[in-house]
């Protein structure tokens, strides 16, 4: 029998690096779930692990693990698609590998410090080496600098590859400028001032502009590549939509940031500006839904990878519902007056990150899984992926719903009816709608954990036992080959 072909799909070095990005991303996803579950249980029984792992440490790990794994997953997606887009190996791949292992080591150290040191005295050494103390971006200063350096090398990889390949596309151009913003806005989280208003003013640049604007654009870039791969959508159509989305994301989002400036001591004009522009913020998300439905309908869903295509659709709707609807629900000043800082924000956070970013990373890992092992049958599918996706989505809907009900209870009983008094606080927190939903969060979190286990098993096995129909067992089948692309 002739063996004229290679026995494994040929991967670019950059795609092999992307594989590590995806492995670490999925591992950190499990950490996010476990610390989230511990934190959820501590809400029910505050004595659980009382002095070993305080709630604040678990929440920090829950949120930080999420930010890192989603970013890692999306950057892995860029390393995956970049050589396909430019038609050559990524330039500076050795540098990219070095900084990647530095980041992995750094994340490990930061997690260990969070777990075993937790907090330090109010000194500069604490900010630099233990915990910066700002909610959600607690990473110590040295880790912040490492992250900026990482994005800088990433930017260099993209620009150098574009120049060397002598090929630029609209998607690549958006990516280059988005990476500038991705590195730049993260630095806004590193300014320590004693003025709490200034501190919060800049803090929101990271939480809102970095995560909500530059990440959304990165998602647009990755989704464009994914749709081209999955459906064969034309580049002209994708780039047109991408430009519209970028214009809308930045056009509404930069001043829409004002909705975070309502109650932190900024001038009053932010009420009007923030209210108006943040009301427009769901527009780019609507555009993305229309785009996805248009494409999928046009191609009659004939995707080459069923789980990835499913997550593309889940992303379009999840992004719109989680980020758009749940965000808009509390963004107008008149509502936000009563709802800010309640669990409604947590509901929005959970649904939006799941819809916008988790779904995107799922698309990417399934596309990679299709190409990592022996080439698999097209369209790629498995028995497990539907269960994994279904349980993860059921879990997040349950958690989001529970947070929404507790947030509604707080907004109505503690804020609107009780006027934010101490007695009203107690009344809201002991109200059955609040107390019972603590259990819902925990059990739906367990559902997500089961979904995660199925997802991990599925990613490790998809395509491994691809059963071939008898008719396909022709001589060609015996030779392992280069796959679809």
């Amino acid at each position: 029998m002739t063996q004229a072909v290679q026995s494994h799909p040929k991967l670019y070095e950059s795609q092999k690096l992307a594989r590590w990005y995806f492995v670490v991303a999925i591992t950190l996803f499990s950490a996010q779930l476990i610390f989230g579950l511990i934190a959820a249980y501590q809400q029910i029984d505050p004595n659980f692990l009382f002095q070993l792992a305080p709630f604040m440490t678990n929440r920090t790990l829950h949120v930080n693990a999420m930010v890192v794994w989603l970013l890692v997953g999306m950057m892995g997606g860029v390393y995956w698609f970049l050589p396909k887009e430019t038609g050559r190996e990524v330039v500076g791949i050795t540098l990219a590998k070095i900084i990647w292992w530095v980041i992995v080591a750094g994340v490990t150290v930061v997690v260990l410090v969070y777990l075993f040191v937790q907090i330090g005295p109010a000194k500069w050494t604490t900010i630099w080496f233990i915990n910066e103390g700002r909610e959600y971006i607690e990473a110590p200063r040295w880790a912040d600098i490492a992250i900026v350096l990482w994005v800088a090398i990433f930017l260099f990889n993209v620009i150098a590859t574009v120049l060397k390949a002598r090929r630029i596309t609209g998607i690549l151009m958006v990516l280059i400028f988005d990476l500038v913003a991705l590195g730049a806005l993260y630095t806004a989280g590193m300014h320590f001032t004693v003025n709490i208003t200034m501190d919060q003013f800049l803090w929101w640049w990271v939480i809102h502009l970095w995560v909500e604007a530059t990440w959304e654009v990165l998602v647009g870039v990755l989704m464009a590549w994914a749709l081209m791969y999955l459906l064969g959508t034309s580049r002209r159509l994708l780039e047109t939509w991408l430009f519209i989305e970028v214009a809308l994301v930045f056009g509404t989002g930069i001043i829409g940031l004002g909705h975070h400036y309502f109650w932190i001591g900024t001038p009053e004009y932010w009420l009007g500006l923030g209210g108006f522009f943040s009301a427009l913020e769901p527009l780019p998300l609507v555009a993305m839904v229309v785009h996805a439905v248009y494409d999928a309908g046009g191609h009659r869903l004939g995707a080459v990878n069923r789980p990835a295509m499913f997550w593309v659709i889940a992303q379009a709707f999840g992004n719109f519902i989680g980020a758009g609807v749940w965000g808009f629900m509390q963004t107008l000043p008149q509502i936000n007056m009563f709802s800010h800082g309640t669990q409604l924000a947590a509901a929005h956070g959970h649904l939006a990150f799941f819809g916008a970013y988790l779904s995107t990373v799922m698309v990417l890992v399934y596309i990679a899984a299709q190409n990592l092992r022996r080439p698999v049958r097209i369209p790629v599918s498995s028995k497990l992926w539907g269960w994994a996706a279904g349980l993860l989505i059921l879990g997040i809907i349950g958690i989001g719903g529970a947070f929404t009900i507790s947030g509604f209870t707080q907004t109505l009983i503690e804020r609107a009816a009780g006027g934010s008094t101490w007695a009203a606080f107690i009344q809201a927190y002991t109200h059955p709608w609040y107390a019972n939903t603590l259990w819902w969060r925990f059990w739906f979190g367990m559902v997500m954990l089961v979904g995660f286990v199925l997802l991990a098993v599925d990613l490790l096995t998809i395509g491994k036992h691809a059963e071939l129909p008898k008719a396909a067992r022709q001589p060609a089948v015996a030779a392992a080959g280069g796959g679809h692309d």
Partner: protein
Amino acid sequence: MAQIERVEVYVDGSPEPFQVITQAPFKVKLNPADFEAGDHNMRVVIYYDNGEYYDQPYLFTIQHNNEIAVGHINQSPIHSPVAVDLIDPMEQEGLPPPKVLTHAVIPTLLFLLILVVAGWFSFYGDTSASAEVTNIEPIAKPSRPEAPAGGAVDGAAIFAENCASCHGPNGEGQGDVFPALAGNANLADTDMVIDTVLHGRQGTAMVPWGEQMNDDQIAAVINYVLSAWGNDFGSVTPEEVAAKR
């Protein structure tokens, strides 16, 4: 090792090959504009120099929307030694090469500029901010209630000042979080009561008061709680409190 020497592409059952490739690289590139909209089937036959050949079936779909023809491969064999691709219409027109200024120099400078601004702000931002806030008057430290020298300590006043905000002005408590003290049978265990007031109670909202009050004050407030609102749970002495510190 056998080499590919010829690839023939047949579309929609036609006996004539649609495309024949006789030179490396053996990549099948199809232009979607060459086909009608709809599903098409294709056979790619690969001939090797040792006389073997493989016949591989594909299925692809073509669409003509908005004067753009695009195609997409729906089914391909599991293993294929040649790559089969449908060319994107924009690629056929050719893309302009990157401009060094727009695509490399400007983004790099922008990135460096922001790093410089961020670095400057990290070093000088905190000092400028602390200059801004100097007009805020420091909050006066609350004065600690001192025990009147030699006189009796007013347990009711201490309770009203320190305890009533959680346990209620009449010891009625609040919900499940702050237990009622009026009529609470657990108060009969006076050792437990002294411990709780002195050291707080782990895992609850009850904080320790031992650091902030002397033995007389703690005994007074406990005696008030043990006897107020119809309670009758005995009394404690400052010496008992001191023994539990």
